């Protein structure tokens, strides 16, 4: 199941390599000269204001957006659209009632969803069962996707992404609109599998706190610039003030990080719980947090 040997066989290439990567739309530069290397098994959180180009970065890696300059390699090879070495987990969005899929079928699409035709292969069922067990979804394997909770659907999406045994997992706000317990469960699932299977993780999030104890490094994007390093190196008042070019305070309270004073006004409509002045704020009830930890 764990394919570490073949990964080493590939010459120990980094899961992801960005060299001088630059992305411009018209005159606006999202990021300039971005260098980043994600090693196999490394967990990197991508932080930054909305509109700082976090999702665009994922689109570049997925081969759906061309770089203005620089290069990007996945597993040592240039990006291609539909690269099976990349797993992709998007934001949770509830499937509608008209979805003719059960949990196992959603996971199964990760195995043969891009293959023409309609007959499933024989090996598929056993593989789906294994993936469902890996993400703890066996209990609802045959339940219609539309009736599952957000957290359950995210587990299935992770199972779907793991199906091609990727070298790199891209997650785009996978915790958005999940409650605290499910945020924890989903991020722990990703953390466990990247350790077991040795794939690199690029985890885009507006709130670093749910994954603070898991990430190896963070990539912080702001105002066309970036900073890469461990959370302790990057999430500091002087570093972010320098990045933003204006005073920003990073507060630490009860093991959580709160960034106050980010100057950008842009914020997505989906995260109601922080405003322009509070970038990494997470105003969850600390008691709920303790409860989640107890589980």
């Amino acid at each position, binding site marked *: 199941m764990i394919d570490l040997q073949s990964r080493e066989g590939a010459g120990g290439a980094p899961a992801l390599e960005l060299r001088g990567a630059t992305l411009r739309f018209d005159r606006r530069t999202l990021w300039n000269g971005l260098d980043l290397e994600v090693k196999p098994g490394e967990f990197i959180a991508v932080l930054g204001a909305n509109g700082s180009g976090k999702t665009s970065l994922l689109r570049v890696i997925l081969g759906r957006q061309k770089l203005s300059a620089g290069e990007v390699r996945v597993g040592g090879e240039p990006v291609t659209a539909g690269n099976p070495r990349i797993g992709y987990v998007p934001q949770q969005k509830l499937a509608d009632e008209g979805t003719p899929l059960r949990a196992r079928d959603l996971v199964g699409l990760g195995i043969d969803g*891009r293959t023409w035709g309609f007959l499933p292969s024989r090996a598929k069922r056993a593989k789906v069962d294994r993936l469902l067990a890996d993400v703890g979804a066996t209990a609802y394997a045959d339940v219609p996707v539309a009736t599952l909770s957000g957290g359950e659907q995210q587990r299935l999406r992770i199972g779907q992404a793991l199906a091609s045994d990727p070298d790199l997992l891209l997650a785009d706000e996978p915790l958005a609109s999940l409650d605290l317990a499910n945020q924890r469960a989903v991020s722990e699932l990703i953390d466990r599998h990247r350790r077991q299977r040795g794939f690199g993780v690029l985890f885009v999030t507006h709130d670093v706190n749910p994954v603070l104890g898991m990430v190896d490094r963070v990539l912080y994007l702001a105002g066309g610039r970036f900073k890469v390093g461990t959370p302790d190196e990057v999430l500091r008042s002087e570093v972010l003030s320098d990045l933003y070019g204006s005073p920003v305070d990073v507060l630490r309270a009860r093991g959580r990080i709160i960034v106050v004073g980010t100057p950008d006004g842009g914020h997505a409509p989906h995260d109601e719980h922080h405003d322009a002045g509070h970038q990494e704020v997470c105003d969850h009830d600390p008691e709920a947090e303790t409860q989640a930890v107890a589980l």
Partner: protein
Amino acid sequence: MHLTDLWNQIFDFTDYGQLLVLLRNSVIAGAVLGLLGGLIGVFVMSRDMAFAVHGISELSFAGASAGLLLGVGVVQGSIIGSLVAALLIGVLGSRARDRNSVTAVLMPFGLGLGILCLALYPGRSANKFGLLTGQIVAIDDPQIGWLIAIAVVVLIGLAIVWRPLTFASIDADVAAARGVPVRALSIVFMLLLGLTVAVSVQIVGALLVLSILVTPAAAALKLSSSPLVVPLLSVAFGVTSMVGGILLALGGSVPISPYVTTISFAIYVVCRIIAGARRRRGVSGRRMPVAAVPREEVAA
């Protein structure tokens, strides 16, 4: 006495055997349409395109009327109308909101165009009305040839794109990341849908296409979520509605469509009732529901 007359007008099974032989082509056409409608309906539902189907059928009606007026042929005209509408809706309305407004703009225009063509057509008016509400007039051999050829094209097309189209319909974002050609598939689907609508307009009429392209799949989705069972049920419902409707309509002097729509509606109602009863009994398909579910919800 009066009621008996009415009854005999709607249901009349005298000389049934002979009629059946005469209308063999219609029964075949109905079965083929039930099959097509049942299959493509699953995608109409998962892509949320019921309204677009209605829009395409009105333009198909316009095409058929123009075909009648210009002497090109009703089938050919309705195929052209359907395909043009399907492509326009597919290209201009890739997002649901755009799609609805494009459809809403095209639909009355198509209907108006069709009415214009019919008003100018000097021939028999029974044919005219038939395009809107369906007809049981004997389908002749060249016509059935067309219908079957189109059906074969649609079936082969669906068989090839089935799985990637499912992926793209459920989750276009992830499908695109996985290398599924989402945009191209959407156009292919619109073409297949256009062809199916063109066939449907010939038989159930432009106004009632939804009863065969949406109702069976909607009913099937009430009973199952399995990607195998849903299409099978949907086809069974579609064929039952179509063939059943035609067989009941044979003797009466009423158009075929009320029979088809009534059967199809009744199936849907029954499926809803079954789904409701299941929900009340708490059938969810979860294993060990007590152990697995609340653990997450306690903390939430």
